[in-house]
């Protein structure tokens, strides 16, 4: 079964001069273990498409299925649960909760699910360790570097083992070296843990870490092809 099925997604935005169609009918599917990089020029609709897939926005027309479940008709409550348990998010600006520690941020999906911190701690620590930031578990975001924050964000995204991870410009706010490290971690997550990752980026180099490229132009799917040799190997301590 495909993890993700996107069918004829259209999205228009009303403007004073008339509706503007940002997405004009996008269709594609993603299987388990794929690392899809989505690229396109500014205004191509890639971020909008990611938001629709992630249930943050509603398509004007078309459908999205996550693990066979159509998400358009879901209630707000059901969508919230979907986002919590079946999707993982990684944002450009990290979006960590400033009053929570790295450990608590990582365990946030469990906390939102009503679990106690004590029960979530082992899993959170495991992930932080796997991502190489366990030594910062009790620090707050203000005390972390950009790279560290993004790693905590990745841990949060992976916590409930969602089948699909959505990353919106995950390296957009990082320097190139840190960015590379993050990309390699994302690769690792896909390879070792079997997640499906859909990453929006404007950076070709970042895109090359994926296993498949989807290009959007003017709201349409321009191209969709596998990347034969994904970029990057992990540094020794993160193998």
């Amino acid at each position, binding site marked *: 079964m495909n993890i993700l099925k996107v069918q004829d997604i259209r999205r228009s935005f009303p403007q004073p001069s008339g509706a503007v169609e940002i997405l004009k009918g996008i269709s594609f599917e993603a299987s388990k273990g794929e690392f899809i990089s989505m690229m396109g020029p500014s205004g191509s609709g890639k971020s909008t498409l990611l938001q629709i897939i992630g249930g*943050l926005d509603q398509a004007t027309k078309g459908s999205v299925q996550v693990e066979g479940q159509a998400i358009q008709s879901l209630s707000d409550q059901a969508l919230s649960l979907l986002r919590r348990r079946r999707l993982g998010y990684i944002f450009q600006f990290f*979006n960590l909760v400033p009053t929570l520690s790295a450990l608590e941020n990582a365990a946030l999906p469990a*906390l939102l699910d009503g679990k106690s911190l004590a029960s979530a701690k082992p899993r959170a620590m495991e992930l932080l360790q796997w991502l190489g930031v366990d030594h910062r578990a009790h620090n707050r975001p203000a005390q972390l570097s950009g790279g560290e924050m993004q790693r905590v964000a990745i841990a949060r995204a992976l916590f409930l083992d969602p089948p699909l991870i959505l990353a919106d410009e995950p390296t957009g706010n990082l320097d190139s070296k840190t960015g590379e490290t993050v990309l390699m971690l994302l690769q690792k997550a896909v390879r070792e843990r079997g997640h499906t990752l859909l990453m929006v980026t404007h950076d070709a180099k970042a895109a090359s870490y994926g296993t498949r490229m989807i290009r959007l132009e003017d709201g349409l799917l321009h191209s969709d092809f596998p990347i034969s040799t994904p970029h990057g190997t992990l540094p020794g301590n993160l193998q």
Partner: protein
Amino acid sequence: MILNLFRFFAVRNLMSSPVRTLLTLLGVALGIALFSGVSAINASTLSSFKESVDAVAGKSSLTVSAGDAGFSEQVEEKLKKIPGVRTTAPMIESKAYYRQKDGPEAGKTSLITVFGIDLLKEQSVRTYQTEGGEVIEDPLEFLNQPDSIILTKEFAKLHDLKVNDAIELASAAGSRTFVVRGLLSPTGPAKAYGGAVAIMDIDGARVNFGKEGKVDRIDLVLQDSAPGQPEVKAQVAARAREILGEGYQVEAPETQSDHLQHMVGAFQGMLSFLSALALMIGMVLVANSVSVAITERRQEIGTLRALGATRAKIFFLILGETLVMGSAAGLLGALLGNSVAHALVGQVSQSLASQSGMPIQVRELHYSLREILHAMLLGTSVSVAAAFWPARKAMNIPPMAALKARGADLSGIIGESQWMKVIPWLGAAMLVYLFVNKLTLNLSEPMSPALQALQPALGVIGSAMVAPWVIHYTLTPLLHLLKNSHGSNILVLRMALENLLRAPSRTLSNVLSLLVGLMLVIIVSVINISFKNSVSAWTTKAISVGDMALSSNGRVVAFQVQPLHESVLELIKKTPGVDLSNKRPIVVMRYMKVNYQGDPLVIKALDPTSDESGYPYIDALDRTALEAGHELFSDAHDSVLISENLAKRYHKKTGEVLELDTPTGRHPFAIAATIRDFASPNGVIYLNRNALKKYWKDNLVTIFFLAAKPGVNPVDLQNTFNSTLGKTHGIVTILNTELVGDLINVIDQSFSFNKAVQLAALLVGLIGLLNTMLVSIFERTREFGMLRAVGMDRRQLSKMVLWECLAQGSLGVLAAVVLGTYLSWLWVTVNLAQALGWVIHFSFPTSSILQVFFTGVGVALIAGILPVLRASQLTIRKALEHE
């Protein structure tokens, strides 16, 4: 989940902005402190009075009385014969004033209630005790000496008195010396009125207080009297009323407490009203603060939504934070409330005593755990209620907000633009409703408690909702005016004003705190000034009778004195320098309370004078003073003049008949005119003193107004009286100018609580403004960075921020003045009239408005210091990096 939200979000979010949390907490706590302090004072006052009434009542189940004038002692024989009556105990009850002669409080006057009792039969009704030995060592000596008096230990200690000491009290024949022959322990009647009680033998009291042949009350102890025997009580009461007829009250002790509640309920209502307003401001502060916090955390909330938090959970998260803060505010407010209550109880109870003429002294302030819990509950519920709407807004923040940088969406309380259009209309509708309510309300009917509580809420919320219009319709024309002006300073000013217009919600948030605070300051000022002006204008006229007033020692301006025997008039007439002409005759007045339809009213009984005088003390509304006075003193029939508020309250008018119950039966009086007189919230009746003597058998006088002969200096005449009647009879002579001054002091005292409310309101306004300004400047760090990056220098940036602060302060003042004036006009002419029973005319407080203007602008400048400093010290790089 809820626990997690609480633990990981609610408490931590509050702690992450400690200054804002503290400021909001303080603001709410202040409102709660005032409200719970006032509640405690009100409750304690009534329970103190009830305790006193019960202490005096002793074992008696019923009390017979007939107003201030008293009634014949023969009535006792009739009551004794009623089946079911076991014992009767007559009593004289007089208010006397003790003047401290020596010590640090020398010259200070204290009210003391003197009970004249039949010591030979008191044991069956009341218990008196002293430590060791008998209360009266030698009854034979005590009973045969009219100057014998027993004080309470409490009073004696307070005034450094002991057994065999002499004290001077005012009597009907002037000042008299009494000898302390015993001290009472605080049990029974000695507990009453905070211990400001003295006991005399009844015959001594009769002689001293002008009540020969009379009693003020007779207490009835019933057969086998036990609690909960309504049948016997009801039968005896019915029979007593039948025998005695109209003019007498037969009441159980609890009914007397109800009378006081009735008399002071209005004043207490006004205090509660004002403190409720202060609480409302606290609510607005919370709403504002929470909204600003939500704005700040918009991205965070969006993130939580994106990560799977449901809308309901976001809603409860916000409420949960407010619950924590509200509980803390409630606790702080509760503790502060205790201090407020203790600080104000003296002044408030003195004001209540002035209002009611009753010796109200709060012995024990009830501020216990119960009051603290109530205050905490109030703090929590008020805060949660205030946060309801912002929480609703928060739950509607879309998950997409997670993707937007901070500060990009600056929705404040109002939120999206559609709401900005609708809400001012709603606010206007509320304010218009209040106006319509004024037009249609029947002032003589008591307002329902629900409506009384609703009015301040509607006023404050309505004003807050209408504020956007004030902002928009002030800034837009101003900007238009500046459109064609040039220069870098003008540019900076224009930018400042445009910034305010462009972010209406943020501007509103800043303006709102100051608006509600200053509005309350204006409302309180208007109430104070309107009341003072109305009363002063009347008083000046009322006491511009001659040059001076003579009375016995006490609170002359409130007529709370021991009345003198009318024979003192002859002594006054014999004093050289007194004008005895018909044009400026001596005005003789007896002031006393009577019951009318169960309510206490005031009678001012005056000796007839000739028409030549013109009756300057009569402020007639529907006839001339001459016509009114002529009718009043006509021998043809018994007439009265009634006050405006009495006419309204009891639906009476000139030409109708007013029936008054007297100890000699019910008598009709023709209403000759309606007058203005503020002496009583329920009403005042002017009566010919001859009628008083005839029907009430009262020959006492409260006050003499007189003039100095032409060519005689009033001050010299005053000195003459001081050295003659002042020495022999302890009579005090007060010049009219001094009386007016005393009256202003009494009014000031009555409104002293209001000053506390004003201060609280101002503080809350300042706190709110500081709160929101700090946040909004923080939000705009990036924006300031950009402005600096494109070439604005530090000075220009500082000026712009300063202009913004000034403009917001001025907007707050303007809105407060406009809306505050409107609301206070409504409240003076509706709520105050209802509360105090008087018709108060609205006075515009010009000087107060100026004060408010400077205060408001000053407050805005103070609140702006930090933001201006911060803005001017920004480094561009850091500012641009700011998220």
